[in-house]
C-alpha cells in the first residue's frame, strides 16, 4: 500500500535525514575514490542525480506496469540493472553531443555510474516502500541531490585535509573513512526533523 507521505517531505528527507550515502551507506566506492577533487565530485554528483531521477521513474513504471501485473517480480534485479546501464549509455551520448566540455570533465566516471549501488538501491527502496510515481520522482531526485551534497562536502573536507597534519598511519583512506563517520554522525542531527521508512 502506498504510504501517505507528502512528496516534498520525501524530497527533503532523502536529502538530509535519510541520505542515501550517509544514512544508508550506498554508493560508497565512487564516493571515496572521486571525492579527492572538487571539480570531478561536482560533475559526478550531477550525473548521479540525473541518472538516479531518470532510472527510479523508469524502473517504477516497468515494475508497476509490467513486472507486478505479470507476476515477474523476481526479475526486478536484472531488469533494474539493464535499465540503469541503458540510461547511462544514452545519457553519455547525449552529454557528449550537448556539452562536450562536461563529457570531457566526467571522463571515465560517467560509465562507472552503471555500477553505483545507490542507483539500484533507490530502485529497490521504491519497490519495498510502495511509493507512487510522484513520490518516486521526488525520492529519486532527492536521493541524487543528497549524494551530490555528501560528495561535495567530503571533497571540500578532503581539500582542507590535504594541508592538515594527519598521523602517518591514518593518511589516505584511513582519515577519509573516519571523516565519513563524522559526517554520518553529523547528518544524524537532522533526524529529528523527519523520518521516512
Amino acid at each position, binding site marked *: 500500500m502506498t504510504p501517505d507521505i507528502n512528496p516534498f517531505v520525501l524530497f527533503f528527507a532523502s536529502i538530509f535525514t535519510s541520505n542515501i550515502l550517509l544514512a544508508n551507506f550506498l554508493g560508497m566506492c565512487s564516493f571515496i575514490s572521486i571525492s579527492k577533487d572538487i571539480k570531478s565530485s561536482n560533475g559526478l554528483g550531477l550525473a548521479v542525480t540525473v541518472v538516479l531521477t531518470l532510472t527510479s521513474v523508469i524502473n517504477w513504471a516497468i515494475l508497476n506496469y509490467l513486472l507486478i501485473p*505479470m507476476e*515477474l517480480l523476481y526479475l526486478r534485479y536484472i531488469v533494474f540493472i539493464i535499465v540503469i546501464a*541503458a540510461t547511462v549509455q544514452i545519457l553519455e551520448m547525449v552529454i557528449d553531443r550537448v556539452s*562536450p566540455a562536461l563529457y570531457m570533465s566526467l*571522463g571515465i566516471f560517467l560509465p562507472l555510474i552503471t555500477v553505483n549501488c545507490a542507483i539500484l538501491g533507490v530502485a529497490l527502496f521504491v519497490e519495498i516502500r510502495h511509493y507512487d510515481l510522484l513520490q518516486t520522482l521526488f525520492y529519486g531526485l532527492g536521493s541524487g541531490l543528497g549524494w551530490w551534497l555528501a560528495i561535495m562536502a567530503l571533497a571540500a573536507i578532503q581539500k582542507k585535509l590535504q594541508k592538515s597534519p594527519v598521523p602517518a598511519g591514518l593518511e589516505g583512506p584511513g582519515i577519509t573513512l573516519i571523516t565519513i563517520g563524522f559526517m554520518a554522525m553529523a547528518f544524524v542531527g537532522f533526524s529529528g526533523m523527519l523520518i521516512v521508512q
Partner: protein
Amino acid sequence: MSFLIAPLTIACISGVLAALIALIDKVVNNYGECKIDINEGTKVETVNGGDHLLSLLSTKGIFLPSACGGKGSCGACKCQVTTDVGPHLPTETPYLTKEEMADNVRLACQIKVKSDLSIHIPEELFNVKQFNATVLSIKDLTYDIKEVVFDLGEESITFHSGMYVQIVVPPYAKVKGSTQRAYSMSSRPLDHNKVELLIRLVPGGIATTYVHENLKEGDKMGLIGPFGDFRRSSTDSIMLCVAGGSGMAPFKSILHDMIDSNVTNRDVWYFFGARSLRDMFYMDEMRALEKENSWFHFVPALSEPMEEDNWTGETGLITDVLDRFIKDSIGVEKDLEGYLCGSPGMINACNNVMTNNGIPIEKIYYDSFA
C-alpha cells in the same frame, strides 16, 4: 510455457532498450561530413563524423600503428591533433609524456571526429597498407615458437629491417571481436612479396593461440604495416644485439639485410639467451652465417641447461654473459651500440649492463614486448 516468460520478458526489455540506444546513437552521433586535413594539406580526407579518428583514417587507407586494435590499451596510435578537440582524456594520459601533451599529441583511438580536424602523422605512415595475405608455411621452431611465412600475392611490402606488422585475428571460439597484435618481421627487406613472423605461444593470448591452434597453410589473414622505428643505425659502431625467444625476429632480418646490402664494415655480436636447449632455434643457420661472415659473432647461452642437453657453450643469464663478453672479448673502450628485443624486464637489465660498461643510453635501441 511459464519458463519461457522470464527470458522472453528480459529479451523484450533488452531489445527495446537496445533499439532505443541505436536510434539515439543514430540521431545524436550524426555529425555529418567532416574533413580531416593531414600534414597541412598533403592529404585531405572527407569522412562521416561520429566515429573515432583511428577507425575513420583506416577506412581511407591510412593506418596508424595500433597493437590493441583501438581499445586504448597499447598507446601506439599517437598523432598530433592541431585542431582543438578538448582536454586530454583520462584514458589517454597514462600513455603520453608531458612534452607530448604540450605538443597536442593524442591517441587516435580515443578522439572522436565531430568537426573538421587537422592532424600531423609521420609521412612514412602513408606507405602503410592492409594486405590480404595467404599463409605459405608454418614451421615449429621450438615447442612454443612457430615460424609463419605469409605470401602477399601481387602486393608488395617495402620496409627496413627491424620494422613490424600487425596481424588481424578474426573472431574465433569465444573471442567475439577482431583483434590486432604486432609482430616484428624476420624476413629480408629484399623479399617484397613475403612476410615472415616468429610467434611464441602466450598462454591465454588471443592472437598467439589463434596462430598456434587454428591457423593452417593456405588460410587468409590480414596484415597491416609496416610500422616501427627500430632499425640499424648508419654508423660503423660495433653492434651488440641481445634477444631471447621470438625476439630473434628483427635481428634475423637485420643480419640478412646487412648481408644483402654488403655491409661488412661493422662487427655484430648477437647474444641469444634461452633457458635450455629446447628453447633454442635457428642454431645451424646462425652458426653458418658466423662461418661465412667474419664480422658476425653468435653467442648462444643457456641459463638452465639440462643434463641431456650436453651443452658446452656459454651458461648463465644473458646479461652476465653480455657483461663478460664486453669486458673480456669485445673491449669496453670500443665504440659500441646496443640493440635489444624482448620483455621490458630483460631490456632494463641489459640497459643496466650496457650503461655500466660505458655505452651511452642514447646509443641503446630497443623493441619492447610490453
